[in-house]
């Protein structure tokens, strides 16, 4: 097997090129059961959802209990939401507020709760609509939210609570995280979602012409409720900048707190029911799904014809910059049917990286 690092965005050329040959993709569990089947010619996604028994999981020395029957359904629903297929309830209300004509004379700013970053709500459901309208957006990110992202990584990945170190690393992008890739000590699902949240911050920063990010500067105060800190610090930034404030959350406590402090709030609720067959998928959503699956499950195997590719989302020694860029490790067999496509994907990836540097 050969291996190369690629950026998350380079899954688009991968899917593009594989679809040229009308390949089917199977996302496999560690025991080679099919979890999802993607028909690239018809652009259909079928969720097969084979769970793995406790006995098999022990044999495989794997991973976490995401594959267990009870958890798999909610993990799949989560993945579909994270990759843009399953919008949470309340998203239409949010979009109508963001994209509709405002009667307020003040500019609108939305405060992001941690779970909004964890679930990639902005990049999956808001940014695509925003890009079409070319409306700009003010975003407030409380320090408490960044701290929660950091603490999820620190607790689960580094097994330390040294928050300041994690946050410093987050900004300076110097630290590498070491952990077991599989088995006990592997990053939990929450930690992997935190890693996706770091990438989400990176994506939002990339659209700085369209999205203006404000961060609160006050220190995290121990003893105070986090939801109170989040709402209160955003209220302060909004007042300083004369913004009309909207708190965006998926958490009931934060909503209650926002109402107590007389702030407008939209609460999004994840959907748990999903269709087992999704038809006519845009290719871009398929590449998002592959990224989310690789991150949520730690690694995935993709059956492509008779061959299998591995897409690894978390590996020991992955630096914060790599988490932020959404870097993935691609492992592939050196066989002719795939090598032409992989060669073009890797070339496109190197040029894409160079273009990002010059821009």
């Amino acid at each position: 097997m050969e291996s190369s690092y690629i950026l998350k965005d380079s899954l688009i050329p991968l899917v593009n090129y594989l679809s040229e040959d009308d390949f089917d993709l199977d996302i496999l569990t560690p025991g080679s059961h099919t979890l999802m089947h993607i028909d690239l010619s018809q652009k259909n996604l079928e969720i097969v959802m084979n769970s793995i028994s406790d006995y098999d999981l022990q044999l495989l020395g794997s991973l976490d209990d995401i594959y267990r029957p009870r958890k798999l359904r909610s993990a799949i629903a989560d993945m579909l939401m994270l990759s843009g297929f399953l919008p949470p309830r309340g998203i239409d209300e949010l979009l109508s507020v963001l994209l509709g004509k405002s009667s307020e004379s003040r500019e609108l700013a939305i405060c992001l709760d941690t779970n909004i970053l964890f679930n990639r709500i902005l990049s999956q459901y808001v940014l695509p609509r925003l890009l079409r309208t070319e409306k700009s957006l003010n975003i407030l990110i409380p320090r408490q939210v960044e701290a929660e992202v950091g603490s999820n990584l620190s607790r689960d990945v580094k097994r330390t609570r040294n928050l300041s170190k994690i946050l410093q690393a987050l900004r300076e992008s110097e630290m590498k995280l070491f952990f077991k890739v599989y088995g006990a000590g592997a990053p939990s699902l929450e930690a992997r979602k935190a890693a996706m949240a770091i990438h989400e911050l990176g994506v939002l920063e990339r659209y700085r012409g369209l999205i203006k990010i404000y961060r609160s500067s006050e220190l995290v105060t121990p003893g105070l409720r986090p939801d109170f800190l989040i709402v209160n610090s955003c209220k302060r930034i909004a007042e300083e900048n004369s913004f009309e404030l909207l708190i965006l959350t998926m958490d009931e406590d934060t909503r209650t707190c926002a109402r107590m402090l007389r702030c407008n709030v939209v609460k999004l609720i994840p959907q748990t029911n999903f269709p087992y067959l999704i038809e006519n998928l845009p290719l871009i959503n398929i590449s998002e799904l592959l990224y989310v699956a690789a991150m949520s499950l730690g690694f995935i195997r993709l059956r492509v014809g008779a061959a299998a590719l591995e897409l690894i989302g978390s590996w020991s020694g992955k630096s914060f910059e790599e988490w932020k860029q959404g870097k993935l490790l691609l492992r592939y067999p050196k066989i002719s049917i795939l090598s032409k496509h992989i060669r073009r994907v890797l070339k496109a990836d190197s040029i894409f990286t160079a273009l990002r540097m010059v821009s």
Partner: protein
Amino acid sequence: MWALISPLGLKPIVSLNVFWILTEELGIDVKKVVFIATPKSTSSLSWLPQIFNKVRAVKVESYNVEENFNDMVNTARVVLDKLLSEGFKVIVDVTSGRKIMCIALFNEAIDKADAITYLMLAEHAYDGVFYPYIPKGLTKLVVLRGNLSEGGSCT
């Protein structure tokens, strides 16, 4: 032996996309690229040739023109005649650059170039996006005139 003439617009990735399709997707052996730039679009010339050379080793030349039709027609004629005299088969792409520049170039190329191409894009959201990152089916290189016989057809 092919040469590509590409007017340079404010989104130079469009020129890169045409070059990528010709060389990587259609397998056309482009040996030389000539950019025609206006004063507003010259800034990308500081980095664009390097990126082109990452796709494939190629000789890059550039010509600066003023924003008037006569200058553009004259430059298009000089560039085309020079490439033809050097023995190149010439592809003229009229996707990027000012409209007036594309018209001047098209006008000169219509009887001289081996192919005139235009890169269609179905969704504006992907304007300025590098070709392999545009979902398949949303963009297509159209041959307006002539053919690209060496490396296959453009469908």
